[in-house]
């Protein structure tokens, strides 16, 4: 049988299909990651109308605009405080923040570390493509040292963040890293994150052939995907301090995995105001009744 032509994709009901094709460049890694998230929405067993997706600004910030669920495109860097309010006011909702490395860790960096410290019930999914793609390939907080960017024509001289290390250090209860190629593992990690209470963090390494690939001698998106295929090793128990990435060091492995999966009390600002739990309240009373 040869190829058959179609008009619609089986996953189209999860997207605002009338807006497709999307604006992302050919080979951009955001599309596959959004597909993995969309499939996890269905497989989570949580009704679609209880899922919420929030983003800030940037190419990855466009994701909520293409998802056929309640979704919010907020101001630059402010996805987390917006999502935090949603999660606190409507704790029955499953709230995800889907945004990029620049939005979440430069402009929104403080919001991330404090949401992780407080352990707010949010699932943060961060597309890391090592640069500011939408605005033309400037240096961001994850650009590797020595990498070229429009604002670093001689090479970046700043130490980048290692995002899983940062997330674990600030208190996230689940921390993982996958890529736009490791999609089944990514989907499983998102499903795990949806099951957990508290702040979860998943980094998705993704090709940005225009902003990062071109100035750094990575020919196209396919070449960056091949780098992931050749160089990624899965090591869930890898030491968190050893998760640095430099795509250009071709002999250095890129470590993927689900690195952290712990339990910690979830952020609940009204906990101190509530009366003590009922069991303790009634125990002395019941004893009195028995004695009397």
């Amino acid at each position, binding site marked *: 049988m*040869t*190829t058959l*032509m179609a008009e619609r*994709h089986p*996953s*189209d009901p999860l997207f605002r299909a009338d807006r497709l094709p999307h604006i992302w460049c*050919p080979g951009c890694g955001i599309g596959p990651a959004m597909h993995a998230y969309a499939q996890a929405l269905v497989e989570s067993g949580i009704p679609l109308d209880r899922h919420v997706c929030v983003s800030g600004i940037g190419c990855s910030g466009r994701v909520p605009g293409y998802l056929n669920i309640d979704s919010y495109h907020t101001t630059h860097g402010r996805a987390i405080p917006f999502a935090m309010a949603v999660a606190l006011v409507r704790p029955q909702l499953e709230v995800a923040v889907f945004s990029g490395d620049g939005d979440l860790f430069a402009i929104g960096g403080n919001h991330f570390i404090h949401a992780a410290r407080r352990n707010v019930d949010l699932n943060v999914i961060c597309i890391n493509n090592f640069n500011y793609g939408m605005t033309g390939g400037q240096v961001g907080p994850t650009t590797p040292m020595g990498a070229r960017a429009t604002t670093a024509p001689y090479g970046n001289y700043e130490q980048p963040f290692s995002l899983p290390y940062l997330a674990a250090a600030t208190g996230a209860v689940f921390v993982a890293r996958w890529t736009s*190629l490791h999609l089944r593992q990514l989907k499983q990690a998102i499903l795990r994150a949806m099951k957990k209470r508290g702040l979860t963090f998943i980094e998705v390494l993704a090709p940005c052939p225009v902003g990062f690939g071109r100035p750094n001698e990575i020919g196209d*998106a396919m070449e960056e*995907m091949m780098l992931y295929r050749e160089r990624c090793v899965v090591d869930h128990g890898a030491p968190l301090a050893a998760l640095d990435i430099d795509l250009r060091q071709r002999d250095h492995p890129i470590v993927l995995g689900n690195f952290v999966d712990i339990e910690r009390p979830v952020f609940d600002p009204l906990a101190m105001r509530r009366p003590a739990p009922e069991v303790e309240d009634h125990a002395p009373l019941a004893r009195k009744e028995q004695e009397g």
Partner: protein
Amino acid sequence: MLRGQSTRVPLDWKAAVLPQGQVYVIPSRCKECRFCIDFCPRDVLTLSTETNVRGYRYPVVATGKDVACVHCEFCSLVCPEYAIYTVEVAGAGVTP
């Protein structure tokens, strides 16, 4: 033997049924990134000779690969444009 390939074979290998898939493409969405073509484990796909309205070639089933698709659905998952998927062909599975 030591060429990076596992020589282990699942115990139920002979009983396993390999599904067969039918490839569907939405040409107008494709941006010719080639992910589906290069990551297909069965080399089922190749680029079309024609282009879509925006000038991109899109994947088509290669000559001689008419029944090669095993419906692993990786092309569908990896396509950034949601432009390709497969459907299992009922009753067409084969035992290895």
